[in-house]
């Protein structure tokens, strides 16, 4: 017995010893491994740091080299210009020099882009701040790539989602870099997709700081361990610090973009490395760009600079392709609307011309503001049914947009379904009762809820004003009120490439003739490659609007206006009046083209809008030049060629000025001399003090340089001599065919104040006159 126990015990002890020795072995091995790992980790870290330092040094070296490169380039450009001064214009030498200067500026552009990248790396990148229109930028980029993609049979569309972008379109930020980002992503998408579509989505929202407050509260719920608490607090602080610097300001807006395509897709393993591509020179983009592309790495840096982040989103299972999503923060410039009102109300009649030319320069932003307001207003009527016969992704986008506006949409993609759908609409029409007369307040509140539940995320602009539609006539009110189920207006949108035009047209004709008391509008969608043959057998009666694909931006605006027109022809009154209200001008009636003292941009743009809308189909046109900043000015035009003088006279009178015409130098001098003598007689020849309010006989003289009998230079010299007796100085603008420095010198030595090239362009003229009156 005892032997067994003893032997068992000894066995156990042996086992323990063996076991522990094995354990010790293992431990030792693992410790050695650990030591190795530590060593290699340290080595890796050092290697990384060294690599980072190398790249940092490279960027720094690049950045400093940039100065030298740019100086040399500037030297070359300057010397080329100097040579051009001495070359005879339009000679071979001059043309060669011009080409050299173009090459030099191109080179400068490339160098700048490459150096941009090194500046970003070296942390010295500065973002520009300019005002621009986000909707327009998106539209331009989408349009450019649409044409490119069309060759591959792809569709490139911009999906406005909830139209928040169209509402908050005016922003301040770095327009150029944003364009580069978009163009790069779109270019890649088009490159790697062979069929399907590329969609750009954008939406805007106000970044809420409440998220952070929430998370901080959340952390506070773990007070159990003090160290936890302090750690959470500390983390909180750093989170807020890191995130706050970018999202400051009450007027910053977050824009989220998605570029999605149905192409090859990027496998998961490669997604991280995709952003490591560096500069890729030579992505040709048309129109205004520097001409060099940037790799996704730079795109990432730019996005980060603007306070956002870019990533590849996971698409739904079963869908192929890639989806890039990024967000940036920009400052909204809609708040500046108030600032402009004040400057407007303080206009002095005399200074109107000056201030209005500044306004003319701001035409673009005013226009986009009008557009933004149209989108904010949305549709204030119900009962609109819309039938869409469109191919591709555009159909979904259109459907979503129209449904968000409260329109009932019937979407089909094959022309065979056209007839049955139209029948369905007709049937629902016939089963109608009379429209109820809902009270006005009711309708307003309903429409407000329709339009403005999305406004919570929208921009802070004069939203209330958009509500104030002026008192409408009862007839219009009744028209606007109807059950949402009843079709009272019908909009039909047909893509011209749907095939079988003759059948479609005959069906449409039957339909329009069978509905009598319903307003029906028809919109055709054309694209760049719609064959004209498709319409050769068309016997379509109505065509309210022809829009070009891709359907976005300004074309959506046109469509929206068409829809708004359903309420009656006076739809533009509320809009024009709306603008008047926001600008806080005359609260009273709107007089078309009446002689108000301060004829500002607003009343005239309103006048132009209503005159354009007498023709409903011109709803897509919103030209910029229908203001009269030169009203009250007396301009003397000296021009011998009949065509040029006709065009110039018309341009000037369009801008509101009174024009007198002289055909050669001698006549000009005669006219001016007579006028000078006439004015001075009025004032009994007393010396007039210098100042802006002097009664000049002519406010401006536009002098053509080459005229028969006496040329422009000679005439100017004579005029200046006459002026000396009276103490006047009439601004004289020279008109020449070429703008060489030599011509400039000649005109200045003759006594002219400014000079412009023929043919006369209104914006240049306005700018020059503005300058003339600021001195």
């Amino acid at each position, binding site marked *: 017995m005892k032997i067994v126990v003893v032997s068992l015990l000894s066995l156990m002890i042996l086992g323990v010893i063996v076991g522990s020795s094995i354990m010790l072995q293992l431990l030792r091995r693992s410790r050695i491994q650990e030591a190795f790992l530590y060593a290699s980790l340290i080595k890796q870290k050092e290697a990384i740091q060294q690599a980072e330092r190398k790249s940092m040094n490279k960027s720094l070296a690049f950045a400093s080299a940039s100065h030298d490169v740019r100086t040399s380039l500037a030297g070359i450009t300057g010397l080329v210009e100097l040579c051009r001064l001495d070359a005879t214009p*339009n000679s071979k030498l001059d043309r060669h020099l011009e080409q050299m200067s173009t090459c030099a500026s191109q080179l400068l552009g490339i160098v700048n882009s490459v150096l941009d990248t090194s500046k970003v790396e070296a942390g010295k990148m500065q973002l520009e701040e300019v005002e621009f229109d986000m909707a327009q930028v998106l539209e331009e980029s989408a349009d450019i790539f649409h044409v490119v993609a069309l060759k591959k049979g792809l569709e490139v569309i911009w999906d406005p989602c909830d139209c928040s972008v169209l509402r908050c379109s005016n922003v301040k930020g770095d327009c150029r870099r944003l364009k580069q980002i978009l163009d790069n992503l779109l270019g890649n998408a088009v490159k790697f997709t062979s069929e399907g579509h590329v969609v750009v989505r954008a939406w805007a929202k106000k970044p809420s700081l409440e998220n952070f407050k929430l998370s901080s509260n959340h952390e506070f719920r773990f007070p159990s361990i003090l160290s936890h608490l302090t750690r959470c607090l500390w983390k909180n602080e750093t989170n807020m610090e890191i995130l706050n610097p970018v999202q400051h300001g009450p007027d910053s807006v977050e824009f989220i973009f998605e570029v999605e395509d149905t192409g090859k897709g990027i496998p998961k393993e490669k997604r991280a490395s995709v952003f490591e591509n560096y500069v890729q020179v030579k992505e040709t983009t048309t129109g205004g760009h520097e001409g060099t592309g940037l790799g996704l790495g730079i795109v990432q840096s730019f996005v980060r600079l603007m306070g956002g982040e870019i990533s590849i989103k996971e698409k739904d299972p079963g869908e192929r392709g890639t989806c890039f999503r990024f967000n940036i923060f920009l400052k909204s410039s809609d708040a500046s609307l108030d600032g402009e009102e004040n400057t407007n109300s303080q206009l002095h009649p005399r200074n109107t011309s000056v201030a209005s030319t500044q306004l003319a320069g701001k035409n673009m932003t005013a226009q986009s503001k009008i557009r933004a307001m149209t989108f904010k207003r949305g549709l204030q009527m119900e009962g609109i049914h819309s039938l869409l016969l469109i191919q591709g992704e555009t159909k979904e986008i259109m459907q979503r947009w129209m449904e968000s506006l409260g329109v009932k949409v019937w979407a089909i993609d094959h022309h065979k379904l056209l007839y049955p759908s139209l029948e369905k609409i007709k049937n629902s029409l016939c089963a109608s009762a009379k429209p109820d007369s809902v009270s006005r307040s009711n309708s307003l509140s309903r429409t407000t809820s329709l339009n403005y539940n999305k406004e919570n995320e929208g921009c802070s602009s004069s939203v209330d004003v958009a509500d104030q539609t002026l008192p409408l006539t009862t007839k219009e009110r009744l028209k606007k009120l109807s059950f949402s189920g009843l079709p009272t207006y019908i909009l039909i949108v047909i893509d011209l490439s749907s095939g079988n035009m003759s059948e479609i047209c005959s069906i449409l004709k039957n339909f329009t003739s069978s509905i009598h008391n319903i307003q029906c509008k028809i919109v055709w969608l054309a694209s760049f490659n719609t064959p004209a043959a498709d319409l050769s057998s068309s016997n379509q009666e109505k*065509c309210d609007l022809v829009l070009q694909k891709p359907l976005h931006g300004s074309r959506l605006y046109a469509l929206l206006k068409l829809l708004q027109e359903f309420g009656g022809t006076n739809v533009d009154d509320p809009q024009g009046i709306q603008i008047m209200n926001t600008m806080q001008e005359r609260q009273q009636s709107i007089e078309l083209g009446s002689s108000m003292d301060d004829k500002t941009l607003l009343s005239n743009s309103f006048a132009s809008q209503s005159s354009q809308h007498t*023709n409903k*189909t*011109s709803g897509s046109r919103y030209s910029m030049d229908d203001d009269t900043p030169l009203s009250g000015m007396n301009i003397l035009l000296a021009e011998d*060629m009949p065509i*040029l003088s006709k065009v110039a006279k018309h341009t000037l009178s369009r801008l509101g000025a009174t024009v007198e015409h002289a055909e050669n130098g001698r006549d000009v001098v005669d006219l001016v001399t007579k006028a000078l003598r006439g004015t001075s007689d009025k004032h009994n020849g007393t010396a007039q003090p210098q100042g802006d309010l002097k009664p000049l006989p002519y406010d401006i003289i536009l002098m053509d340089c*080459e005229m028969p009998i006496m040329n422009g230079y000679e005439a100017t010299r004579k005029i200046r001599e006459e002026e000396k007796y009276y103490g006047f100085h009439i601004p004289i603008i020279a008109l020449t065919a070429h703008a060489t420095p030599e011509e400039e010198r000649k005109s200045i030595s003759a006594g002219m104040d400014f000079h412009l090239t023929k*043919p006369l362009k209104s914006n240049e003229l306005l700018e020059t006159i503005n300058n003339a009156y600021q001195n």
Partner: protein
Amino acid sequence: MEVAHLQRRFIDLTTTLFQQGILDNQFIQLQQLQDESNPNFVHEVVSLFFQDSEKLLNELSRILDHQIVDFKIVDAHVHQFKGSSASIGAQRIKDVCIAFRSCCEENNRDGCIRCLQQVKQEYCLVKSNLEDLFRLEKQILAAGGSIPTMQ
């Protein structure tokens, strides 16, 4: 009916003219100057241009027919032609005029004759295209439609 078809042709023609550089932005400016108070402005200016140009081109042919040419006069005429074509936006004519002027400076009679031929060709092109455009406009208006405006 006809209207949509005509409007389509109008858009096509205008687009082609701009793409080929036969017309440029100045033509759009002219169109923008046309309104209710001047409904025929573009037509008037263009007719003036045709009359003027034909006179000029005949003059130029006559002068260059002789062996001895006064290049200063030729230059003056070409300058005038360049100015008027620029003012209606006839871009290609304007470009040829520029080349024409350099031939004048070099007193190169053969070069001038060649340029004259080119100018005449470009002019005929512009003239026939603009006439087509105006005819289409008339037809569209007569059929009750309206002139589609370009985006």
